């Protein structure tokens, strides 16, 4: 039995008066891939963003309940949000490279964390790019602009950039939705490798992707957690009718 890395308790989130998440309690185990599925607007991305306090940036958001990462409530006043986001990294739907070289993109995080020694940065960049399975493709052009990479390469470089600050948890919001099948397969293989060392939480609209890459799946609908369990169970014999209807495409 894996240790629980993230625990939410009665987590509700409001955009102004509108409730977007309704009392979500969920245990996410470490070094496994947990997928969030559900129709658009069901709250899965909102829930993902509560796990590293990305919703703090939206003024009308109000949150009740708890999110515990390694048993610490990340919404406690003493929590340093910068450190939290170092520990809980994030990869977005659209790759967002900085208009800098590949090297500088990956070295950016370590640099702002005070690492300036060239050889140390070189080691971190190489290690991170290797972990993101893109080293072989970019090792000879590290100082070229990251904007020249393909979409799939940019996304893997962004994952390398996330890995460079040594997070323990990686949140992925539709990381392959804008990529072609080959690049998608590479991202999925990467997720499979990364889970040996990281806890991964992924939001996806692609049912087959959730089935392929995740160990656990949570189905959200209208801000509620309808069903959460092992992916192999959810995709073969789900307990809830709603889940069955959604994953078989008979929804609504």
């Amino acid at each position, binding site marked *: 039995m894996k240790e629980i890395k993230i625990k939410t308790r009665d987590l509700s989130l409001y955009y102004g008066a509108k409730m977007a998440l309704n009392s979500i309690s969920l245990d996410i185990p470490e070094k496994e891939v947990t997928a969030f599925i559900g129709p658009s607007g069901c709250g899965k991305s909102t829930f993902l963003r509560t796990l590293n306090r990305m919703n703090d940036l939206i003024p009308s958001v109000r949150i009740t309940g708890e999110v515990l990462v390694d048993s610490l409530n990340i919404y406690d006043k003493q929590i340093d949000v910068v450190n939290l986001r170092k520990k809980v990294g994030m990869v977005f739907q659209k790759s967002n490279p900085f208009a800098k070289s590949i090297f500088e993109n990956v070295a950016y995080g370590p640099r702002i964390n005070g690492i300036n020694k060239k050889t140390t940065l070189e080691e971190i960049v190489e290690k991170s790019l290797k972990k993101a399975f893109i080293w072989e493709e970019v090792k000879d052009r590290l100082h070229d602009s990251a904007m020249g990479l393909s979409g799939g390469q940019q996304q893997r470089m962004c994952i390398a950039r996330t890995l460079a600050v040594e997070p323990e948890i990686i949140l992925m919001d539709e990381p392959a939705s804008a990529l072609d099948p080959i690049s998608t397969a590479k991202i999925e293989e990467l997720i499979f490798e990364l889970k040996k060392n990281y806890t991964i939480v992924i939001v996806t609209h692609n*049912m*087959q992707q959730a*089935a392929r890459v995740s160990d656990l799946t949570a189905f959200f609908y209208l801000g509620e957690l309808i069903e959460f369990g*092992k992916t*192999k*169970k959810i*995709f*073969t*014999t*789900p307990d809830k009718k709603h*889940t*069955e209807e959604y*994953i*078989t*495409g008979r929804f609504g």
Partner: protein
Amino acid sequence: MERHFEQELQKLNKRILKMGNLVYDQIHNSLEALLTCNIELAQQVVGKDNKVDKLDVKIDKLCQRIFALTQPVATDLRLIMSALKMNNDLERLGDLAVNISTKVEGVSDYQEILTDLHVDELANMADLIVKDVITILNTRNTTFVRDIFSSANAIEEKVQAVSSRILDEMMHKTEVIVVATNLMIILTQIDRIAGYSTNIAESIVFIVEGKMIKHKNPFKHIDGAEINPGHENPVEDSGNSGI
């Protein structure tokens, strides 16, 4: 709006049911041919087997197409997996009907032996178990799956009892060895009819309830209490360990 995928599943359901009815007719006719020594009917069964084979291939191809094009999950996945297995079991049942039919001529002059051994009772039991399992396939009412297992047990016991009697006869009367061997082959086919019928019943439970009950009879007595497929069951697999 009905989705194209739904139409494919309906087509699959219809074809499996058509296969079930076709195979039941084959089994029924082969057993009737046996009991009435109707060689012509037996030959018709043999001749019709190619229809079963053709439908078998058609169903396999449809399942292959649905798997390749739709990536089914949950109840759809269970249906298509089970359709493949049931199709195989039904096709084998068709083969058993042919095997019985090819032995009709060899026993047709020994009607009194068939009567003496109560082969008609066994034949009726075999006919009924296939008829019942096809009904369950049509209605998907798993309440009656228990009856299939009970009937299969009864057939197995009766086949063993009759086989023992035949072996006894063979030891004492060398002149009956040929007909007795044919009868033993027929009994084996009847025993297999029961076996394939329980396989199909297991597949229907998997489709409807998502429980894998194969390889162990879930309806056997445990500490005096019978177990229902819908209740807590020590031998079932809820489908989460195999994929």
